[in-house]
Each structure stands twice: as structure tokens, then as C-alpha cells.
């Protein structure tokens, strides 16, 4: 099949403003991923196309981008998912994720995202002495299940950059940081939950969430992001973790 690929391009050294690059790709297999198409453009048509990717298998989270208006990982998005069954032609539009400064073409500056990530102290805090037998700190399977979903985050930023509240005000910590906070707040072995709740209970914390569900739709790991945010809100309103 033939695909008309429309890519948002921007080179800060040459361009005054972003522009759309149009590329025609023949012999596209519906099972090709959008990343495969971008590789074809870069390797066969225009080597200046800049994008970020690493594992190409949906694990590293490097290639989050806006594909046909919705955030997704380019490596996990198959052409077949974007076209009608049996179609011989298709148009696919690819843009950088929104809400973060564009460095070049599809590459954005992730620093503001990671600043929010770091603000929720995304690491294990426990100042109690470890068990005397030298073994690990135990917890019940039920306690482990409480934060199982939020351990799956790969920090691709698809959720945060799909959030209208984040687009409107970049000071909002965003869904990804709240997911990371959730992972530790509800870990029964962690003792830093009060510190984290203070951060996500701030003016630019969970209260900025308007329950739009864009984050849940965008997550390539199918984390129930809005539900995790609701659980943090509940902890903040009831005082119970």
C-alpha cells in the first residue's frame, strides 16, 4: 500500500517556524510500525529528519509522538491500526508531543518533564533498620497489588503531554509524576508517603487534573492513569493511604 506521511518539521538553525514535510512511501506493509515509516524517510528520503528512538519495541519509551492527533509510541503503532481494513492508500500525520519545547523535528526537550518527575521523590524512602535476618523487607501480595499498575510506567511522557491541563500550564506536575508518586505512596514498605503527598497536594499537583482521561488513553503500557490520580486525590482528602 501507499502512505502519505506528513511530518511536522522544525530546525531551529534554519527555520523561523515549524512546517509540514510531505513524504510518499510505496510498498508499505500494514504490519509496519510508524517508526518503520519514519526510518524509511530518514534512511531513504531525507537524512536530516530527527527523531528519538532506542529499543523500538515499546520498552524504552523514547519515541512517544503525536500520531494522527493522539499520543502513542511510534514503535508500537502499526499502520494497520490507523487505516480502514483493505485500504490501499492512507495519510498519516506525525508531530512532536505537545507541551514541551521542540529541540528539532520530533525531538522535544524532556527536562521540564523530568524536573516534575524528580519533584515527587521517585525512589524508595525507608529510614528504619533493615530486617535483622538480612533478608528483604516483606509485604503481602495484597499490599504489592495496590501499586502494581503504576510500576509499569516507562516515562515516555505520552500521558503528561496529552493532558490539556499540562498544555495550559507547564507548572502542573502532570500525570506521569503522579503515577510515580502513586507507585511509592501506596508501597507499604515506603515511609516517604507524607512528603510525596505534600508535593502532589500542592496547587500544581493533583488538583489540576480535570479527569479528561487523555492520559489513560495515551499510555502505551495501559496504566489506568486517571484511576491512579483519583487514588492519590482520595488519600489527600481522607488522610488515609
Amino acid at each position, binding site marked *: 500500500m501507499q502512505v502519505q506521511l506528513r511530518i511536522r518539521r522544525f530546525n531551529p538553525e534554519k527555520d523561523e517556524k515549524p512546517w509540514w514535510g510531505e513524504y510518499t512511501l510505496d510498498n508499505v506493509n500494514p504490519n509496519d510500525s510508524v517508526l518503520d515509516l519514519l526510518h524509511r524517510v530518514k534512511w531513504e528520503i531525507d537524512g536530516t529528519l530527527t527523531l528519538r528512538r532506542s529499543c523500538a519495541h515499546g520498552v524504552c519509551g523514547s519515541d512517544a509522538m503525536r500520531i494522527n492527533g493522539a499520543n502513542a509510541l511510534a514503535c508500537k503503532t502499526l499502520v494497520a491500526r490507523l487505516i480502514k481494513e483493505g485500504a490501499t492508500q492512507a495519510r498519516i500525520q506525525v508531530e512532536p508531543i505537545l507541551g514541551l519545547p521542540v529541540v528539532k523535528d520530533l525531538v522535544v526537550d524532556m527536562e521540564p518533564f523530568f524536573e516534575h518527575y524528580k519533584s515527587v521523590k521517585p525512589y524508595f524512602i525507608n529510614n528504619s533498620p533493615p530486617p535483622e535476618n538480612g533478608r528483604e523487607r516483606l509485604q503481602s501480595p495484597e499490599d*504489592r*497489588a495496590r501499586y502494581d499498575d503504576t510500576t509499569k510506567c516507562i516515562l515516555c511522557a505520552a500521558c503528561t503531554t496529552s493532558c490539556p491541563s499540562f498544555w495550559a500550564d507547564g507548572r502542573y506536575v502532570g500525570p506521569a509524576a503522579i503515577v510515580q508518586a502513586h507507585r511509592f505512596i501506596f508501597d507499604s514498605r515506603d515511609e516517604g508517603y*507524607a512528603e510525596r503527598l505534600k508535593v502532589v497536594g500542592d496547587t500544581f499537583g493533583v488538583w489540576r487534573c480535570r479527569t479528561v482521561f487523555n492520559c489513560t488513553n495515551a499510555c502505551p503500557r495501559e496504566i489506568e492513569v486517571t484511576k491512579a490520580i483519583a487514588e492519590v486525590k482520595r488519600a489527600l482528602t481522607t*488522610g488515609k*493511604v
Partner: protein
Amino acid sequence: MTAVSGTSEKVTRRAVQLEANFERIAYLGMRMSGIVLLVLAVGHMMIQHVLNSSTNLTIQFVAEQWRSWGWKSYDMLLLIFAFSHGINGLRNVLSDYIHNDKIMKGINVFLAVFLVVTILWAGFAIARFDPAAIQ
């Protein structure tokens, strides 16, 4: 999500001391007033427009209703909850798009004064309403 096979007794529950936080109070107020409005606003619409025909909804009809303190109280509660719910929603929308803290603080003060003055003014008008003057 991993299935949980045990009982909730195996889940560790911990308490956390919450600090005073205006955003949390505003968030809870929004949810509580929303629930109250589901009863008051939907009830008001049903009574005024379904049980009574909209064509009969005249000043005389309202004056007749406001002979009773029950109806005056109902409408004053509707005024308080609907207006505070709406003003808080407006504050949320504005705070999304206005990033200057000083301007936002000024808007918050204005909205708070506007809310209190309007509720007092309209509440006073309802309380002092004289049905006999309409006849």
C-alpha cells in the same frame, strides 16, 4: 493488574496528617456542592418545568411559591450552591490560563467578593420578597 486473592485485612492502611490546603477544600466543596445540586437543580427543573407547565411560569407563580419560607429556603440554597460551584469552576478555568500569580490573586479576591456580595444581595432580595406587592 494483579488479582487480589486475600482479604482486605492483609492490606496495610496508614494515616497521614494533612496540612491546611485551600485547593483540597475547594476540590471537596466542588464535589459536595455538585451532589447537592443534583438534588436541588434537577428537583427545581422537575417542579418548575415538568410538574408545572413552563407556560404558567409567571411572576405571579413565583410570588405564590415565595409565600412559603420552605420555597424561599430552597431557592436560597440553590443560589448558594449553584453560584459558589460556578464561581469555583470559573476560578479553575482562569487558573489554567492565567500564569501570573499576582493577577490570579487579584482575580481570586474579586471572585470571592463577587460571590459573597451576590449571595447576600440575592439572598436578602428573596428573604424580603413581598408577594402582596405583585398582586
